[in-house]
């Protein structure tokens, strides 16, 4: 039981560390952002607290030292420096290490850890000698714990500040105090000006105004009192709690306008009853009747609005709560939904042939529900791609520091959602691409300046939806790819013939071949020639495509196109004899009919002419060895595979088919041309084609055939 909790703790701690790193990197740019500092402190505090709860004493002691420093940062006693951020980042790495090291949870700190702790202590020592009045870390920690306790008690307060007329006589200016109030939380201030006389009767140095303030804060009543502490003896200050989470939980709606006014003593109960007996809007009536000043109504309205907003905010926070579910459970859910979809389409078929109105009705309902269930289940697996992006920020920062380069990583579309498995498998390729950009793409600041570019390089990482797929691009403003170097290298490695004529795209595609690296020297970062082909392999396995474009001295852009999910596919169902196949819809361009006479005219070659353009085609019948007489007319599904138009010849195009992909099982692993299968309504299996592989193996068969023919004719 404990192990399960511990596992949850480790997961959460890792999440916190990731957030922590994000915040640290942000802090480097916005070193005075109190919100960031606060979130860093809270993350450390939580790691420490729950760590010691689960017996990670070493981790707790270690984290405490860092937390101490951030508490001081929070209170303004220590400023954010590069050293601080650097040490904290390495501390994060150590914490991560301690989380995985389950054996040694309460031993002594390692040398590296001690060094980090010493570093933090030195930082603190320096500030102490500078500012003798700075609070001792221990005292501050206690304070912080009180604060975080209070965090849960966010309340809305009503404050009425009634200054005595002589408030201004000692030069008091209230505006800074109001500004301070705004700093405590969301705050609505209304000045009540009804007592201000005409100019002739005005004593310019007296205060005629009083204030109604509605404030929503988690800092407690005393914090509000503290704001007005210097004017306390010249003001009447009334503070009351008007709304809180507990009150809301009691199910009470907030007070009506009239009730607020009565509660504040601005209106008598009798007057309210009088007004309410008329069927009009309360505010209008009350002022029309001259019973009450507009200012009072205004402040009451503001109060209502503030409470409403605070309640809405709490509601959204509650809605945003999440639960953790192991991925396997999700996978089995998806699998079951897949089965359900299959059974449902069988039901529909049976219902259609039964001619029973009652069964048809039920079948339709089941169909609708199943579709909704399927969509919902799929959306559970969708995760914003930002989680993959955030790791890369750290990578760019560390690498560029190591290489003495200045690089900014800009990300766009982090909210773009993708299937969880796609994101997981996208991590490695993205790391490779970013490493390449940092190492080979972006030059040193000196070189960049000499080339007339800003000394800081930029890597742009963006994601967006395009149809049923997601496009992820990594682009840098570095030196770009050199076509000639790539060509020479490819010739040297025997990848292309010396006299081969290649288009720009084809040359760039060479980079994706195994063992290809043009780096002059092999560095730690990249350049072993394992990067790009790994990327290519990973993206291929995701059914995605990769495209490179580059301009020398301007930069390189790598575009990945990935399917939204690997669990479901939008395809075109086709039939050859009695076999069914699914062709992925994303690569289909059109469907055309092919007559037997056309085939004969091409003298046996698998080529046809479509609107004047020669298009080669693959005969599924031959590829899958289906023996059955040809039909008089067949259909060709024209697809685009790796940039070329290729036809897939079938007997019949059945129609569009959205289906849950089922794996074929390991006995069929060696079959490349098929990525999985789908089960049709009547229980028939339809194979899902991997078009690139289908075309490749057809080309191979054709070439072998051609050689045989040649050999035979000699």
């Amino acid at each position, binding site marked *: 039981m404990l192990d399960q909790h511990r596992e949850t703790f480790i997961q959460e701690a890792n999440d916190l560390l990731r957030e922590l790193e994000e915040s640290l990197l942000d802090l480097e740019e916005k070193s005075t952002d109190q919100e960031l500092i606060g979130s860093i402190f809270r993350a450390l505090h939580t790691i420490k607290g729950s760590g010691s709860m689960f017996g990670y004493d070493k981790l707790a002691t270690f984290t405490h030292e860092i937390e101490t420093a951030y508490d001081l940062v929070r209170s303004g006693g220590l400023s954010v420096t590069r050293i601080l951020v650097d040490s904290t980042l390495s501390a994060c790495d150590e914490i991560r290490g301690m989380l995985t090291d389950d054996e040694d949870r309460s031993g002594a700190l390692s040398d590296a850890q001690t060094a980090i702790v010493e570093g933090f202590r030195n930082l603190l020592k320096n500030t102490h000698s500078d500012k003798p009045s700075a609070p001792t870390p221990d005292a501050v920690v206690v304070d912080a714990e009180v604060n975080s306790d209070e965090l849960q008690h966010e309340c809305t307060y009503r404050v009425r500040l009634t200054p005595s007329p002589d408030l201004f006589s000692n030069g008091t200016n209230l*505006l800074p105090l109001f500004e301070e109030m705004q700093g405590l939380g969301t705050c609505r201030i209304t000045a009540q000006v009804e007592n*201000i006389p005409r100019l*002739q009767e005005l004593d310019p*140095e007296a*205060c005629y105004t009083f204030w109604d303030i509605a404030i929503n804060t988690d800092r407690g009543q005393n914090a509000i009192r503290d704001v007005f502490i210097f004017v306390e003896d010249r003001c009447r200050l009334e503070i009351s709690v008007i709304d809180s989470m507990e009150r809301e939980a009691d199910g009470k709606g907030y007070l009506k306008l009239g009730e607020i006014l009565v509660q504040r003593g601005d209106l008598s109960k009798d007057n309210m009853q009088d007004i309410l007996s008329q069927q009009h809007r309360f505010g209008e009536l009350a002022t029309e009747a001259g019973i009450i000043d507009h200012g009072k109504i*205004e402040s009451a309205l503001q109060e209502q609005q503030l409470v409403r907003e605070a309640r809405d905010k709490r509601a959204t926070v509650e809605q945003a709560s999440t639960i953790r579910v192991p991925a396997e459970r999700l996978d089995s859910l998806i699998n079951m939904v897949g089965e359900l979809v299959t059974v449902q389409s069988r039901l529909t078929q049976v219902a259609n042939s039964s001619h029973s109105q009652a069964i048809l009705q039920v079948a339709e309902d089941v169909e609708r529900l199943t579709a909704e269930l399927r969509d919902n289940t799929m959306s559970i697996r969708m995760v914003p791609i930002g989680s993959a992006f955030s790791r890369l920020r750290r990578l760019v920062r560390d690498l560029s520091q190591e290489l003495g380069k200045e690089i900014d990583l800009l990300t766009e579309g982090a909210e773009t959602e993708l299937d969880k498995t796609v994101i997981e498998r996208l991590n490695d390729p993205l790391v490779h691409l970013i490493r390449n950009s940092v190492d080979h793409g972006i030059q040193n600041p000196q070189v960049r300046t000499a080339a007339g570019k800003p000394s800081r390089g930029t890597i742009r990482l963006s994601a967006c939806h395009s149809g049923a797929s997601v496009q992820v691009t990594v682009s840098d403003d570095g030196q770009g790819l050199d076509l000639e170097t790539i060509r020479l290298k490819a010739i040297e490695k025997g990848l292309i013939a010396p006299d081969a004529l290649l288009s720009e795209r084809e040359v760039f595609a060479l980079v994706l071949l195994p063992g290809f690296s043009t780096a002059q020297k092999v560095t730690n970062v990249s350049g072993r020639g394992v990067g790009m082909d790994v990327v290519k392999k990973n993206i291929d396995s995701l059914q995605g495509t990769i495209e490179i474009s580059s301009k020398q001295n301007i930069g390189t852009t790598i575009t990945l196109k990935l399917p939204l999910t690997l669990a479901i596919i939008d395809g075109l169902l086709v039939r050859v004899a009695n076999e069914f196949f699914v062709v992925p819809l994303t690569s289909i361009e059109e469907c055309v009919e092919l007559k037997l006479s056309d085939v004969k005219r091409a003298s046996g070659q698998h080529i046809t002419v479509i609107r004047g353009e020669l298009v080669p085609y693959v005969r599924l019948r031959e590829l899958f060895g289906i023996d059955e007489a040809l039909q008089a007319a067949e259909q060709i599904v024209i697809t685009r595979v790796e940039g070329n138009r290729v036809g897939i010849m079938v007997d019949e195009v059945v129609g569009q088919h959205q289906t849950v992909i089922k794996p074929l099982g390991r006995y069929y692993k060696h079959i490349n041309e098929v990525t999985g299968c789908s089960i049709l309504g009547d229980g028939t299996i339809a194979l899902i084609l991997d078009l690139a592989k289908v075309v490749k193996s057809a080309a191979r068969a054709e070439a072998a055939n051609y050689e045989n023919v040649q050999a035979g004719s000699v």
Partner: protein
Amino acid sequence: MQSVENGLKQNSRLALAGELTISRASELAASIGQWLAEQETVAVLDLAAVTAADVSFLQILCAAHRSSLREGKSLSVVSPSRELLRAMKTAGFERRQPCTQCTGDTCLWQVKEGL
């Protein structure tokens, strides 16, 4: 700091400048009162050059406006400076509805949507 005497008194327009705070409250109330008395129907306060204001000045504005209403004059403020608007907002003088003593949309503190 500029004094009111340095401000432009042109037709029915009075321009005030500088820090309009409690230390000048008496002086400001007196000069505005006198100027307002000289105007016949229309009085315009130009507050573009105000660099600071506090509650005492906002009270003076409100009082002057109340006087003008009583005397059947129209007092309005043109191009209030950013600092003045900030003071108004911070001190909670902004109104969505005109105050009871004002008629129509003459209230100095009424915030019009979109402005």
